[in-house]
């Protein structure tokens, strides 16, 4: 999927700065102020978006550590004991989530980009000098993969307004595997 949030944010900011803000009525002070503020907030989002995942992971790790420390240092009556038990029950699930969340989003993106490139190279090579059976398998697999991918991409982009019959497409929520 080429149309990612960071890519879109950049063009939104450029449109606002280059074309929209210069056309805002300078006498409408509130409009001018909020237009600049909108650009500023979008710029902050664009800058921080690549680190959002790392930030959340870091924070989760911090709280897992804090919960473990508190578990060894805090004691008290029934209320404290109950609260500690509830807190401790979340430590292992938190650690498990951290264990599974080891790749950065950019790593996912780069891995995908490299795999796409090499599949493309294989398609070109095998259509050039692959044996006949391989070429038939290749066609079948590439077509099936494209069908699945394009179904997902078209569904993802329904809000862009290009689909002649959006109701005919399966909602994208039903097309994505849950992250386990």
């Amino acid at each position, binding site marked *: 999927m080429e149309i990612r949030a960071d890519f879109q944010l950049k063009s939104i900011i450029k449109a606002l700065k280059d074309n929209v803000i210069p056309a805002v009525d300078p006498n409408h002070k509130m409009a001018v102020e909020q237009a600049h503020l909108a650009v500023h907030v979008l710029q902050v989002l664009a800058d921080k978006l690549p680190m959002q995942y790392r930030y959340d992971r870091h924070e989760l790790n911090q709280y897992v550590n804090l919960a473990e420390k508190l578990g060894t240092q805090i004691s008290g009556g029934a209320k404290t004991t109950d609260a500690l038990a509830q807190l401790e029950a979340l430590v292992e699930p938190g650690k498990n989530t951290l264990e599974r969340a080891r790749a950065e989003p950019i790593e996912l993106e780069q891995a995908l980009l490299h795999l796409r490139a090499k599949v493309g190279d294989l398609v070109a090579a095998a259509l050039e000098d692959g044996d006949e059976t391989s070429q038939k398998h290749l066609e079948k697999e590439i077509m099936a993969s494209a069908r699945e991918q394009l179904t997902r991409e078209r569904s993802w982009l329904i809000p862009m307004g*290009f689909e002649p019959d959006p109701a005919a497409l399966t909602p994208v929520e039903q097309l994505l595997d849950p992250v386990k």
Partner: protein
Amino acid sequence: MIDKDHPSEAWIADLRTRFPCEAEVDWVLTRKLRNRAGAAYTPVKLDQLCDAVTDLLNAELHDAFEVKNPRWLSGGASKLQMAFDLDWHQPGVGRTTTPLVLRMEPAASIVETSRLREFELIKACETVVPVPPVFWVDREGKYLPYPALIYGFAKGVTKPSTAASGVSGTGINFGVELRKTLSKQFVEQLAAIHTFDWSKAQLSSFSVPAKDSAEGVEWQINWWERVWTEDANEEVPLMRFAAKWMRANMPIIDHVSLLHGDYRSGNFLFTEENSQINAWLDWETGHLGDRHEDIAYSICKPWGHLAENGKTFLVCGMMSEPEFYEAYEKASGLSVDKKRLNFYRILNAYKLNSIALATAYRAVAGGKTHQDIVLGCVMGASYLFMDDLRQTLEEVA
């Protein structure tokens, strides 16, 4: 992986060898790559453009003139457009004020094309179909910040005042009554372009493909495979498969026609008071080739919509596919061949993906245009083109 944002001369030379195109197309694409590592687009002010237009006209005109009333025009995803009035001594007319449009490239476009070719094509069609009169061209951006042409301001709208459409004039719904009137003109004018005797027209920037050969088809495949290779960020294996299939299945061109290259609703203006098509615009991908390329282009899904019955797909919001083919054959006297139509559905989908997914991405990533946000939205249509490519390949491959 190749750094496409900083193309080396060796890579450019390799692309030129692997994908030989018409000379003017090669010049445009080579220039695009050589400019790529350069600056992003920075907004140009109307005053700057007026000064540059004045410089151009000083070189072209010998009488006093004045550039007046400049204002921005919107519409289209490709070029920057400024309307203005020219007070001048027009040959054969005398002192007059002519409403004009400057059509100029940004630092990089969603589709990189030649202003000279566009100029020559519109000029050639002045007596064939309604087009705005063209006046001057700045092929290399000698006077203007970027290459540009100047043509007459054509009155009209791309869609009814009350109608909705997608970005860049896609999916326009003309409504039941207007569609009847426009459909007839739409088909007849396509037929007129395809049956026009272009051999006497001034088309110096075009190469003429041999009749009864696939030469012109190979030029088109080379053009768009080169663009895809130059600009795509994410690899799409289906595109490799499609390129290979096209090269193995190139049809012969039985009749070399002038082609518009982007013949669809959204690219013509009509006047609402009499429902007449007043001007065909956006000739930039036009060339000499097989009529089926234009016909197949018009039937692309994003240009049309479903009829009121919720079932029939209307080509460009006009008529059903069978009605379109029948009317075209009647108007042109030329046949519509399903097999060739399928080939060009694949070529057009490939071309549209090269433009809407690959070049649009590269231009926006580099901040190269005056409307990156529009290009970012147009990219949303590319997955429809890609799925059309897949479906057609599954049908015919």
